[in-house]
């Protein structure tokens, strides 16, 4: 199955930033032994690998047994993003979490959010049509968009409208009458009430179709007329050109670039139809597009990506008994992205809007604090690798090594010059006891740079 072709480590670094959460050089070097094709296939092949045993978090940290708090579900998610062998599954779930955005703010029922995240994870890399069907049966989503109040004779349009506007077609591609028809077709789609927790433990919410609360009869939706129900609405939606464009544009923004590129979006939209809405072939084509390979550092990292990347470099939180994973939820929230609690059903404003003065301060402070500490396993490894087999190192080489070790970070020449001028004064640096501190002081500023905000 392997070819002898190795992959340029910078391309591996790029692929890993996009399809995963970035990786330090020692890991990239291992991956670069494979061909690019094999790396892509390995990322896509989630099914043959096991998911992490997140229940161990609960065994070692009693606080993670608090199933009523979204912070602990968020923490478990971060644990998976850091440790899962099926990392693309987590990345794609994060993508859908923004596109099919649902949060705890309204229901305050975290059990629903756990089930919701499982839908994103279980179906996110499958067929988009199936995913939309699943989401239309998902209690968290139904509650979030008031489906339990969408009754025959008293139609609540919230879900029908957002399904079209935010989950599939985008504004301007359907009429108000289509919204009304969709909402009517979903009447009676609701969920049951969970029984009290005690003494029986958790009881999952389930989808319920209330036949007596459904508006039967002829409806016209996007030109199709008949006694349509919610399932028919989804089936009709996925066939639309507007949906292909919408999903393609969103995938492009998340995986390729903050700047839209119609040619690339068209190519993704084509693979949407060619694969009949299958996410894996769509992603495979995307990762092989030149537009993807050339889009190095073309997007601003999402806060969750930033946090996981920093932790990956620090090499911490790889064991379930290590405490601290729940702090990541708060860190990411302060940078503008609280998982399982998006600001609205629209998800987050991404791209440049991730960077405002408050969020930027949090990003910089977090990365500098974590990676300025020489005592984490990851930093000890980096310091060891830089100093191995030498007694001195030149300032330029030292800064370049630091950039490489962090995962092939690219700096603009001006930033490089400033760092060199400010951080290292000697012509040759002796590798002595305080060398680790010196490395960390350089890394502390590299990760505070503008460039480190990009992915």
């Amino acid at each position, binding site marked *: 199955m392997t070819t002898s072709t190795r992959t340029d480590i910078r391309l591996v670094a790029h692929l890993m930033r996009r399809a995963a959460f970035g990786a330090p050089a020692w890991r990239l070097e291992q991956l670069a032994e494979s061909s690019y094709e094999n790396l892509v296939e390995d990322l896509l092949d989630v099914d043959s690998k096991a998911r992490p045993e997140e229940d161990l978090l609960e065994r070692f940290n009693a606080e993670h047994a608090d199933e009523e708090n979204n912070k602990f579900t968020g923490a478990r998610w971060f644990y998976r993003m850091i440790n899962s062998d099926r990392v693309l599954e987590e990345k794609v779930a994060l993508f859908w979490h923004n596109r099919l955005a649902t949060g705890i703010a*309204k229901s305050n029922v975290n059990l629903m959010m756990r089930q919701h995240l499982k839908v994103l994870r279980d179906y996110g890399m499958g067929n988009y049509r199936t995913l939309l069907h699943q989401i239309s049966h998902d209690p968290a989503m139904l509650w979030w968009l*008031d489906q339990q*109040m969408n009754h025959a004779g008293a139609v609540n349009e919230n879900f029908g409208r957002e399904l079209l506007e935010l989950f599939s077609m985008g504004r301007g591609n359907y009429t*108000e009458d289509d919204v009304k028809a969709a909402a009517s077709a979903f009447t009676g789609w609701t969920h049951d009430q969970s029984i009290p927790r005690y003494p029986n433990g958790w009881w999952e919410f389930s989808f319920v179709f209330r036949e007596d609360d459904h508006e039967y009869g002829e409806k016209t939706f996007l030109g199709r007329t008949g006694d349509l129900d919610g399932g028919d609405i989804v089936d009709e939606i996925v066939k639309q050109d507007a949906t292909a464009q919408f999903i393609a544009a969103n995938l492009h923004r998340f995986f390729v670039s903050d700047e839209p590129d119609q040619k690339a979006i068209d190519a993704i939209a084509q693979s949407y139809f060619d694969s009949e809405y299958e996410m894996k072939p769509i992603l495979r084509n995307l990762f092989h597009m030149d537009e993807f390979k050339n889009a190095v550092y073309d997007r601003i990292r999402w806060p969750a990506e930033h946090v996981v990347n920093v932790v990956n470099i620090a090499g911490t939180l790889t064991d379930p008994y290590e405490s601290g994973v729940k702090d990541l939820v708060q860190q990411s929230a302060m940078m503008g992205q609280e998982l399982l609690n998006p600001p609205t*059903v629209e998800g987050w404003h991404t791209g440049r809007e991730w960077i*405002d*003065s408050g969020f930027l301060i949090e990003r910089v402070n977090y990365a500098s604090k974590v990676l300025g500490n020489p005592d984490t396993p990851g930093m000890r490894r980096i310091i060891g690798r830089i100093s191995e087999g030498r007694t001195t190192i030149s300032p330029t080489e030292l800064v370049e090594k630091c950039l490489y070790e962090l995962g092939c970070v690219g700096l603009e020449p001006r930033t490089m010059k400033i760092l060199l001028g400010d951080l290292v004064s000697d012509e040759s640096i002796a590798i002595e006891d305080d060398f680790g501190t010196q490395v960390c002081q350089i890394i502390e500023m590299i990760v505070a740079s503008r460039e480190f905000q990009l992915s």
Partner: protein
Amino acid sequence: MAGGKNGVGLSDPVLVVVQLSGGNDFMNTVIPYGDPFYYDFRKTVGVKEENVLRLDDHFGLHPSLGPLKAMYDAGDVAVVSGIGYPVPDRSHFRSMDIWHTAEPSTVIAEGWLGKVIRELDPTQQNVCTGVSFGQGLPRAMYLMGTPAISLSQLEGYGLLTSIAGERQRKALNTFQRMYVPEEIDEASMVMNHIGQTGIDALTGADMLKVAPELYSSTVEYGNDALSQSLKGIAQVHLAAIGTRVFYAQLPGFDTHGAQIATQAGLLSNLATSVSDFFDDLREHNASENVIMLVFTEFGRRVRDNGNGTDHGSAGGAFLIGDRVKGGFYAEYPSLDPANHLSGDLQFNNDFRSLYSTILDGYFGIAPEPIVNGKFEQFSGMFESVGVQSQ
């Protein structure tokens, strides 16, 4: 400014914007309890006549708005009803964008308050001209190349705080030079945006850190997010660092269901925190140059859905402050079904009229470039119109 009492920074008008996110149901905020249609349409999600806080024999405030009623009675609250824009959009996001950018017909990124900040401080002398409290800078304050500060709280606000002492001073110096934007060209727009934001954050943090140290007050704000944001705004205002535009947010108004309890809680939160805020400013003789705009992206449907209300069009806004001449502005839209716009109240005044009134009558700056057109202004909304000493 004519007639200034005394105290802090009286010469410069200050605007505080409070955003009620989710679409506040204006019909249950300023309630036309004297209109029989109201009770026809609000059979379950209505406020009983005996509970309404009466403003006159036709309109009243929601019972949770007691502190706002007191401010209304003092003549400090202007009610603008029937507010909206052509071709109402019932999407939260699009509608909020429209309010933020003052541009209903096309999607643009430039916020109206960003343009106000640029107008008030064209040479960018002060990065704290605009300060937003809460998670994230609202699009209203976003304008490429114009600084605005976003923070969640004043306490602990600063850059590279894990580095101590002399080394931190050096690190901040390095940071400053790494972030200074280069000449703007298309290719480096993102880097320049990050760069400028970093520089603004650095400068802003230096200026803002004095605010809590200088502040003392007998007013005890609530622990809720809006109260804390308004307290922060009071602290920054009282520190007199030259902030002219403030922003705070109260989310949660998307009451498709369980509206009665939800909206009551939120409105109580709003009225209490706003009243505390103005009390605080008055205690420091610093209220006279501050007005507050309270807005929401849209109102809700005329007919309730049995448990809540769905997205509608025409909504309402408040303008509050000593300088504001209280009372009703614009007509309350007719509840008669014959006058509905597909189940919604018909708007009768464009929100850009209110913006224009604030810009021209209060700030004394030309509204047209900011609201993207010429809109009729409300007359007599301010106690002393167009006064701005230099």
